[in-house]
């Protein structure tokens, strides 16, 4: 059974009352532990597709099965819980919560689950250690550099060991060298933890280095 089965997903934007069809019958399968790159022109709907796959946005029509189950048919709270446990997000901006320290930010998904505070913070400390930020544990996001913040965001996405990591241009705001560090981390995560990942990128070299490459064109997904 595939980790993710997407069938005929439609999604439109409305701009000044006009409908713009972004996803026009997207269908694709993602297997467990797969590392996939997704490329496409700006405005092709890559982010929208990621949001829909991550249950952040509702499709207008279509079916999305996670391990054979249609999560969207459950209630809002069940979807939120699913998102919390199964999906990890990394965005172009780090989107760390400014009022909390790096450590608390990383532990946040576990705190949302109401896990034991001390245990969650302990595991978050290990994760930060792993992304080589042990020295930055008590810093607020405002006091971190872009690369550091992005690594904290990655650690946060991994906090609950999700089955699927959705990365939306994670290195888009970073210089090539820092970006390469993030890419390296992504690959390690995929290899060591067996977490499937879909990485949206404009970086051709990175896209080419992925085992499976997809392109979003004309509202549909094609292999390249």
């Amino acid at each position, binding site marked *: 059974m595939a980790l993710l089965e997407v069938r005929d997903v*439609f999604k439109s934007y409305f701009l000044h009352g006009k409908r713009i069809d972004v996803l*026009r019958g997207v269908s694709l399968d993602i297997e467990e532990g797969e590392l996939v790159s997704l490329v496409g022109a700006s405005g092709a709907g890559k982010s929208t597709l990621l949001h829909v796959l991550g249950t952040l*946005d509702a499709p207008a029509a279509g079916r999305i099965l996670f391990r054979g189950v249609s999560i969207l048919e459950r209630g809002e*709270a069940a979807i*939120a819980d699913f998102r919390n446990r199964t999906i990890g997000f990394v965005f172009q901006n780090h*989107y760390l919560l400014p009022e909390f320290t790096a450590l608390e930010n990383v532990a946040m998904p576990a705190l949302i689950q109401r896990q034991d505070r001390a245990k969650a913070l302990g595991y978050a400390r290990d994760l930060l250690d792993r992304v080589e930020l042990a020295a930055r544990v008590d810093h607020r996001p405002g006091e971190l550099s872009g690369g550091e913040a992005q690594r904290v965001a990655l650690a946060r996405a991994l906090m609950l060991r999700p089955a699927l990591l959705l990365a939306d241009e994670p290195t888009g705001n970073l210089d090539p060298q820092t970006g390469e560090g993030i890419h390296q981390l992504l690959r390690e995560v995929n290899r060591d933890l067996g977490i499937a990942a879909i990485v949206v990128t404009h970086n051709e070299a990175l896209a080419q280095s992925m085992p499976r490459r997809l392109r979003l064109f004309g509202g549909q997904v094609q292999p390249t």
Partner: protein
Amino acid sequence: MNRAVIAERQTAYRWGYVWTGGLVALAGGALLATALIRAGAVRAAAGELALIAFGWGPLVSVLKGFAAVLDPLRNRSAIFSQLPLFATGVALWALGWALIALGIRRTTASPSPPSEARGAALYPPLARYTDFYWGTLLAYGGGMLLAELTLILLHTALVAGVGRGGAARDGLLRASPISAFAIALLAGFAVAFAAGFIGASRARRLSVPEATVGIFYFGLPIPIGLTALSSSSLLELRFGYRLREVTYVAGLIGRPELGYWLVFLGLALWMVFGITAGFIATSSGRVDLRTGFELFVARRHAAVFKPRLLLGLLVVLLLGIVPPLIIYAMVRAADAAVERTRIRALGMSDPLKASEALDRLRTEEHSPTAMMTALSVGGVGVGVMALIIVLSVMSGFEVDLQQKILGTNAHIFVSKYSDSFTEYPEVMQKIRAVKGVVATTPFVLGEVMVTSDRDTGGGLVVKGIDPATVGEVTDLRKNILPGGSLDNLAHPENISAMRFGAEGVSARLTSRTEGRQRPPEDVAIIEPSAPRNAERVLPGIILGTEMSAKLHLFVGDRVNVVAPLGGELGPQGPVPKSRPFRVAGLAYSGMYEYDLKFAYIELHEAQKFFNVEGVTGIDVKVADIDDARRIATAIVDTLEGYPYKAKDWGAMNQNLFSALRLEKLVMGIILTIIVIVAAGLIIATVIMLVLEKRKEISVLKALGVPDGGIVKIFLAEGLQIGCAGGLLGLFSGVAWCLFIERVGIKLDPQVYYIPALPVRIEPLQTAISVVIAILVTYLASVYPALKASQVEPVEGLKSE
């Protein structure tokens, strides 16, 4: 189904038609109602009409219709007499609805080409969308009705005593009207809250349409019926006796309708609390009352519980705005001067370090949201403080007045419907056996005029009292000023004179302890007008201080009492009867009226003077004054009713106390409005917070916080403000009250008859003020919190 032939249809409104139709239908309904009322049919069918009007329609009205058909003669002629009005009303009503129907049209939308998604599976939540839950409507409406019925029935049952038969009537479960009402009210609130909670958790959303329909359609009939009770003789006849306890409690504030509607509002509010609580607790699909995570986030968002902020606000509430502002300005100026000097010195050696210090100084400035938060906390604090101070002062006045009235009057007054109440000793024995009665004393009441040698006083009421027992029932013994004594009524030969002058003052100071031992000759020298050397000892009389001042009378003076109707019958009607008395003491109750209009003589003297055998009535003192009404009933029951009757102090002074309570209630409402204004600040603050945190909300949602969690976070932020403000208000309000109590604020004695502003801090009332403030802030936060939960995660995550 063949999808190709589905042409999309839309609803088009012609609002002119709809609005005109609505107005015409309303006018028709009014005419119809007028016709029915004029025909007298309403009186016969008031109940049914009420039910139909509130939409409990068809089944009930059909059943009632059958009943009406079986009794045709009564209504037919009446309706025919109003036929034109009736017909016009029906016609207008129908026309109005026809216009409304014309105003709503279904049109075919302009054809647009089908989208590519035609035939694809619809997004599941949309496919299962339901917009009205009958079960929830039932929970809300039924709950409202149940809450009202619970309140009324429980109150009536508690006052009447739970259980059957005579033995249980004095059972433990019998409560005084006030406490029974409090218990019933709490039960009603609990039922309303539970119903709202259940309804909302069933639907897993707020279900505003169901709530509106439920609360209005099911909740309104009872308060409307109660309001109409006093104006409709039919309703009065049918329900008046059963609802007597309810109407009594509502009548305590003078305007029963206000009471009914406030209670209804309270029940509706508790249902709203229940609905929001149910939605928040169960929107995640299961009851989830844990809030640890939400509080963790909320505390970081709006840091309210900072010692500096709270302390500063407390100082502002206690001292006013200006003094703390001056101190703050001074401290800040000094602080800034020191800091600038330090940075300049630093800059001389290390410019970069200096710029870092400058930056730190700048980031210490407060954000607008922090400022708003402080303002909202202060606003709630001011509201609660005002509420506590004003209610405490009003309670002070009420308690003061009550003490003075109850000090002079008995708690219960037992009398007889006939003139000769000679068997009073036996009746007193029986009354004393009633549970809750502490003491009894008989009295004779008569109206007289008094004159002194110098002046003529007005009319006053003379009360013949039993000096031996009256002290147990009223405060008269305590109210006698030094120089006089109650016992001198029984022993008028001991009355000593009191005059201004060296001797008089010493007499005034010492007579309380040794007055009775003073030789009468002593006085005779000072006061020649007092006929102490008269061969006959005059009976004593105790006058109020106001009357004695008016007549220039002092203890030991002689006074003539004239009873207009007390004497024999002469050829031209009753001849006034006059008798001299000697002032045995002056009474000061603190109430101008009482001190002017009451005088006291010995019981047997009064019987002789007014030429009566028995007494006018018996004054009774009870242990619990709030229970006086029930004990009065018990006394009448013990005396086997007619010809005896009993009236409690509340009924005797009903107008005064109900006016006071109404005043207090209205003040409470007005001051609650201050709290509501402060709550407006909270709404604005939380909305600002929501706008400021849009991105954070999106991120939290992406991390898996459900909508309910977001609602909880922002509710917690609003509630933090409310709690902080409530506590500050509590502290400052109680502090102000204590200040007024200790230091005192002088009142003009000419106007108020009280030397200083009375304050009485009632714990329950004070606690309720704080609770109201917190509940209001909770309600205020619900809307912004819901708005926060509706932030689409995608909105905040758009990359710039």
